[in-house]
C-alpha cells in the first residue's frame, strides 16, 4: 500500500513558515528595497471597445520627475511581441483556436476597460500618477459586447477582425451519436439552463513587479509574485521581449495568494522589464485593487444548457451540454483548456454515465481575459451537473441521495474510464456518501428543519458529488543538498503562494531521510538557482515536488553511503540507513547524515519528476442553508464533506486547504459577481464596495471526514487537494437552497444567490400561472 511508502507522513506539523510570516518576516515583492528605483504607472482604457487615435504625451513628459512615457508606438517599434497561450484546442475539423495578437499595448484598438494604453515612468509614484493624468489618448468608441451569448449572437460587434462571429473555437468532445441514441430511448430527461457568474481572484497581495538592472551582468532581475518563475521567464524572454534568458532572472519571494490568475505573464510585467532594459535603471510597479479587478484574469464566465437522460430505473444513460465560454478580449495563457477540458474532466462527476457530449462555443468579448482560477472549469460544471441530478430526482420522485448511490461508479470499477476518455484512478464513492452523511449529521436535519420552520425560516439540505483531475506541468528537477552546516536545502520549481509548501515538502524529506523537519529549508522562485520547473497550478505541487523530493532523497542516501563506508571503514554492503544515520549491520557503530556532510562535504541528490501528474481526488459535500423567505437572504448553517485525498501529508494543512476552498465556493454561490454593464461595457464591480467577498461570519464551521483511497498514479499515493473543495462547494449550496425552495415551486435559480434573486424566485413561484 502506498500508505506505507513513507510512514513518517501524516503528522499534524504546524506550518514552519508561520512564525516568520506572523512576526513580520514575510518578504513580498513590495517589501524588497530598491533604492533609486523609478515608479511606473499605467494609463488604462476607460472604454470597453474603441479605435485608438494618435496619443499626445507632450504634457506628461514635461512634468517634473518624469523619465519616460511609453505608448504602443514605442513598444511596437521595439518589437515587443505576442503573449501567447501555451495550450491549444482544436475544432472538429482540426483547426487550432484563433489567437489574435496580444501585445503589451495594443496599437490599433482597445478591447476591454482597463487595457494598458500608456506607461509613465517617474522618480516618485506621485509624480508618475500626476503625469499619467496628462497623457492624452484619443479614442473613437465602438459598440461593445460583454456576455457570451451576446458575443455569439449574429450582428454582434466584432472584437477581433480575425474571429468572425467572435468565435475562437467551436469545441466538441464526446460521442454525439451515442448520446442522441441514449436520449432517444430515455424514460426521462431533465434539463437545466445555467449561467455562471464571472468571478475575481481577490488575492490579498495585489500584483506587483520590480525590475532591477545589473550593469555588470547586463541582466535584469524581475521580482514578482508568481506561481512559478520558469514559465514567466520563458514567455517573457522568448515570446514578448526577445532577449536571451540569461539576461532576465525571475525571482519570486513570498506570495499572498495565487489561485491561477498569478500564473500568466501580464503586460505590466513585460513593460516593467522592458523599461528597465531600456532605461538601464530599476523600475517598480504595484497594482491597486481596482487594477486587479479591471486587468487581472477573471474566471468562470460560462453559459450552459445541460440535459441528463435516465432510464426507467433511474440509471443515468447520457449527459449532454451546449455551452458558450466567454474568453474575454484575448486568449489567456492556459484558458483554451480551462472551460473545455475542465468541463470534460468532471462532466460525469462521480457517476457511471455511459455517454457524454459537450459542444462549446468559445467566444471573444470586450471584457478582461478569462483564465484558470481555483477549480478551473470544474466548479461551474459541477454546479449544473449536481443541480441536474437533484432535478432529475425531484422530477422522477426519487431521493437525491439514493439516485446518486444508484449511479455511483462502483468501488471495484477502478481504474474507471469515463465517457469523455479520462481515467479515474481510485475511489469508493458509496463510502464517501456514508461518511458525508455522517459528518453532515443528515439524520439530525429533520429536527433542525422543524426548528427553523418554527422561527419562520426555510431550511434545505443539499449534497454534491465532486472531484478534481489534477493537472499541471511536471517539468520538475528537485535538488536536495545536505550541507556541512547541518541543514538540508531543497530546491524546487513549484511555487508556494501561501499554501505551506515549506512545511509539507520538509515533511516528505524528513520522512525520507529520518531527520527533523526543522533542519530542512525549501528554496523556490529563482530562475538562476533552480534549473527548471513547471510552477504551481492544477493541484499538483505535492504530487510533483513531493514525489521528486523523495526520489532526490533516495539519491542523497545512495551518494552518502560510500562516504559513510569510508568514514566507518566498513563495506558499503554492510551499511543500513535508518533514522538519519548509517549503521554497520549487527553493530552499534553508526554515522549520521549530517556528520558525513560535515566531515566529507555537502551531499547533493537530484531527481526529475517521474510519476503521473494526474490524480482524481473526490468528495461528497453536504450543506444546510437557512433562508428568510421574507427577504430572500440565505445563510449557510452547516457545511461538511467527506473527501478522498489519497495519502494525507499533513492533516492541518489539508483542513486549511478544504476550508479555504469551501469559502471560495461559498462566495461564488452567494455573492461574487464581476458583472459588466451590457451597454457601456464598464465593469460594475471595480472595487470591493461593489464586489462582495464572504466574511468570516458568512461561513459556518467547516467539518470534514477523510475517506481516502491512495492514488496508484504516484509513488506516495497522494491526490492533489487544492481545488477539490472549491469544485463542490457552490454545487452543494445551490442544491441546499433548491431543496428548501423547490417545495414552494421554485424550479431553477442562478448564481449568485443574492437576497433579491431568491426573493424574486419565491415571488414568481407563488404567483398563480
Amino acid at each position, binding site marked *: 500500500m502506498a500508505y506505507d511508502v513513507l510512514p513518517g507522513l501524516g503528522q499534524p506539523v504546524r506550518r514552519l513558515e508561520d512564525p516568520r510570516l506572523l512576526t513580520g518576516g514575510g518578504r513580498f515583492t513590495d517589501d524588497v528595497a530598491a533604492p533609486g528605483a523609478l515608479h511606473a504607472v499605467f494609463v488604462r482604457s476607460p472604454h470597453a471597445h474603441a479605435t485608438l487615435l494618435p496619443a499626445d504625451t507632450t504634457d506628461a513628459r514635461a512634468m517634473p520627475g518624469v523619465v519616460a512615457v511609453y505608448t504602443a508606438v514605442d513598444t511596437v517599434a521595439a518589437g515587443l511581441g505576442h503573449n501567447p497561450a501555451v495550450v491549444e484546442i482544436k475544432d472538429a475539423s482540426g483547426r487550432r483556436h484563433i489567437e489574435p495578437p496580444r501585445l503589451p499595448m495594443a496599437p490599433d484598438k482597445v478591447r476591454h476597460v482597463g487595457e494598458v494604453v500608456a506607461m509613465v515612468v517617474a522618480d516618485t509614484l506621485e509624480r508618475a500618477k*500626476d503625469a499619467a493624468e496628462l497623457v492624452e489618448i484619443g479614442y473613437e468608441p465602438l459598440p461593445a459586447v460583454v456576455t457570451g451569448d451576446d458575443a455569439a449572437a449574429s450582428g454582434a460587434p466584432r472584437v477581433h477582425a480575425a474571429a468572425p462571429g467572435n468565435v475562437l473555437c467551436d469545441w466538441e468532445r464526446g460521442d454525439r451519436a451515442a448520446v442522441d441514441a441514449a436520449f432517444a430511448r430515455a424514460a426521462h430527461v431533465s434539463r437545466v439552463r445555467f449561467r455562471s457568474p464571472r468571478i475575481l481572484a481577490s488575492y490579498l497581495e495585489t500584483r506587483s513587479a520590480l525590475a532591477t538592472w545589473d550593469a555588470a551582468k547586463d541582466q535584469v532581475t524581475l521580482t514578482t509574485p508568481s506561481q512559478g518563475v520558469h514559465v514567466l521567464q520563458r514567455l517573457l524572454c522568448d515570446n514578448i521581449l526577445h532577449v536571451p534568458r540569461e539576461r532576465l532572472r525571475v525571482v519570486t519571494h513570498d506570495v499572498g495568494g495565487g489561485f491561477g490568475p498569478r500564473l500568466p505573464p501580464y503586460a505590466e510585467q513585460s513593460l516593467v522589464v522592458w523599461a528597465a532594459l531600456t532605461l538601464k535603471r530599476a523600475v517598480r510597479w504595484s497594482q*491597486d485593487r481596482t487594477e486587479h479587478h479591471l486587468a487581472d484574469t477573471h474566471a468562470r464566465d460560462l453559459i450552459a444548457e445541460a440535459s441528463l437522460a435516465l432510464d426507467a430505473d433511474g440509471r443515468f444513460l447520457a449527459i449532454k451540454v451546449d455551452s458558450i465560454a466567454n474568453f474575454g478580449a484575448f486568449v489567456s495563457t492556459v484558458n483554451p483548456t480551462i472551460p473545455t477540458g475542465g468541463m470534460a474532466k468532471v462532466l460525469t462527476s462521480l457517476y457511471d454515465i455511459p455517454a457524454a457530449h459537450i459542444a462549446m462555443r468559445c467566444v471573444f468579448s470586450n471584457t478582461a481575459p478569462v483564465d484558470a482560477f481555483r477549480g478551473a472549469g470544474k466548479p461551474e460544471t459541477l454546479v449544473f451537473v449536481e443541480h441536474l441530478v437533484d432535478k432529475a430526482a425531484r422530477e422522477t420522485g426519487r431521493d437525491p441521495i439514493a439516485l446518486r448511490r444508484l449511479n455511483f461508479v462502483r468501488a471495484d470499477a477502478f481504474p474507471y474510464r469515463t465517457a469523455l476518455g479520462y481515467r479515474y484512478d481510485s475511489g469508493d464513492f458509496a463510502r464517501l456518501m456514508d461518511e458525508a452523511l455522517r459528518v453532515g449529521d443528515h439524520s439530525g436535519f429533520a429536527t433542525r428543519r422543524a426548528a427553523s420552520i418554527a422561527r419562520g425560516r426555510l431550511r434545505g439540505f443539499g449534497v454534491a458529488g465532486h472531484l478534481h483531475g489534477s493537472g499541471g506541468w511536471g517539468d520538475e528537477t528537485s535538488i536536495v543538498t545536505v550541507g556541512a552546516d547541518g541543514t538540508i536545502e531543497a530546491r524546487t520549481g513549484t511555487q508556494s503562494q501561501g499554501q505551506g509548501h515549506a512545511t509539507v515538502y520538509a515533511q516528505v524529506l524528513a520522512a525520507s531521510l529520518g531527520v527533523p523537519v526543522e533542519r530542512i529549508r525549501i528554496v523556490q522562485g529563482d530562475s538562476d538557482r533552480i534549473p527548471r520547473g513547471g510552477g504551481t497550478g492544477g493541484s499538483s505541487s505535492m504530487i510533483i515536488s513531493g514525489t521528486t523530493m523523495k526520489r532526490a532523497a533516495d539519491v542523497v542516501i545512495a551518494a552518502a553511503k560510500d562516504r559513510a563506508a569510508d568514514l566507518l571503514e566498513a563495506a558499503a554492503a554492510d551499511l543500513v540507513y535508518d533514522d538519519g544515520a548509517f549503521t554497520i549491520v549487527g553493530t552499534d557503530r553508526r554515522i549520521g547524515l549530517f556528520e558525513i556532510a560535515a566531515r566529507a562535504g555537502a551531499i547533493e541528490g537530484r531527481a526529475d519528476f517521474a510519476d503521473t501528474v494526474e490524480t482524481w481526488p473526490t468528495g461528497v459535500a453536504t450543506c444546510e442553508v437557512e433562508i428568510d423567505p421574507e*427577504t430572500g*437572504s440565505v445563510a449557510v448553517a452547516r457545511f461538511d464533506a467527506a473527501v478522498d485525498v489519497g495519502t494525507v501529508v499533513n492533516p492541518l494543512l489539508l483542513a486549511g486547504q478544504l476550508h479555504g476552498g469551501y469559502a471560495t465556493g461559498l462566495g461564488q454561490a452567494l455573492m461574487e459577481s464581476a458583472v459588466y454593464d451590457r451597454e457601456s461595457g464598464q465593469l460594475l464591480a471595480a472595487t470591493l464596495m461593489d464586489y462582495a467577498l464572504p*466574511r468570516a461570519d458568512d461561513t459556518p464551521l467547516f467539518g470534514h471526514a477523510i475517506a481516502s483511497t491512495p492514488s496508484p498514479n504516484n509513488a506516495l499515493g497522494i491526490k492533489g487537494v487544492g481545488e477539490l473543495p472549491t469544485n463542490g462547494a457552490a454545487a452543494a449550496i445551490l442544491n441546499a437552497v433548491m431543496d428548501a425552495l423547490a417545495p414552494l415551486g421554485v424550479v431553477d435559480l442562478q448564481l449568485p444567490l*443574492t*437576497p*433579491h434573486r431568491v*426573493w424574486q424566485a419565491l415571488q414568481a413561484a407563488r404567483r398563480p400561472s
Partner: protein
Amino acid sequence: MKSPPLGYVRAMDMPDVFRLRANAGPDARVLAGGQSLLPTLAFRLSDPGTLIDITRVDALRGIRLVADGALRVGALTTHAELGRDALVRVRVPVLADAVGLIAHPAIRNRGTIGGSLAYADPAAELPAVCVALDAVVIAVGPAGERRIAARDFLTGLFTTALAGDELIAAVEFRPMPGRRTVIHELARRSGDYAMAGIVLAAGPGTPTHDPRPVFFGVGDRPILATRAAACLAVGGAAALAAAQAALDGDLDPPSDQHGGPAFKRQLARVLLARAVNSLIDARDAR
C-alpha cells in the same frame, strides 16, 4: 499617497476654520474622520486643492447635557465614542445601537457623526436616527449658529442645507421621556451599507403612540413614512398590515446594486413589522 496633489492646513479653533476656509477657496474640503473623503481622493475622484483639518477644534468635541436637558453631541464625536458613551447609553440608547451597524471597528474609530450627516449618504444609519428622533443639527458659520431640524437638513442625495461657509458644530437630541426607539437593517454582509433599514421611535406608552418610522437605503435621504405612521397610530390588529400597505405611498425606492423597487418595498414592509414587534417585545420584557 494616491491622492492628487493637495494642501493641508490644520485649524485650532473656529475662527481659524473660517479664516482658512475663506483663504482656501470654494473647492477646499473640511477633513474630520475622512472615511468617505479620503477614498475619493485615493481614487482621484475629487480634487479639493486644500484639506482643512478640523480634528483639533475643541468646540466641535464632547458629549454633554445642555440647558434644556438636550444631549449635545459634538460633530467630531466618532462612532466608537458614541457607542461607548455612558450618557448616550442612558439618554439616547438607539445611537449606541446604531453604531453596531456602522461598517467596521476601524471605520468607527475614525468616522464622525458630523461627517456622516454632512456626507448625507441615504443608506447611512446616523442621519436616519437623527430624523427619527427629530434631532437638531447645529450649523456654524462666520455669522454664528443656525439650528436646523434634521429632516430639513438632509435635502437629497449627498446634499444638505449647509451653506458653503458653514460646518456642523453639533447635533442635539432633546429629551423624550418614555419614548423608545429601535433600529433594524438588512445588509448583505455584516458591515455593509444596508439594503434597507428602519429607525422606529414611539411612545411614551404603547408603540401606537406617535410612531415615527424612518427608512434608510430606500430613497435619496432618510424617509419619514407618514402614511404608515398614521396607520400604526390607529392601533388594533389590522394596524401593522395597513401600515405595511401604506408604505407604497410613502416610499418610491430607486434600484441599486441590491435590487429593484419591488424588492426594496418588500424589505421596508419586513423591517416595519420587525421594528414594531421589537418595540412590543421590549415593552413586554420590562
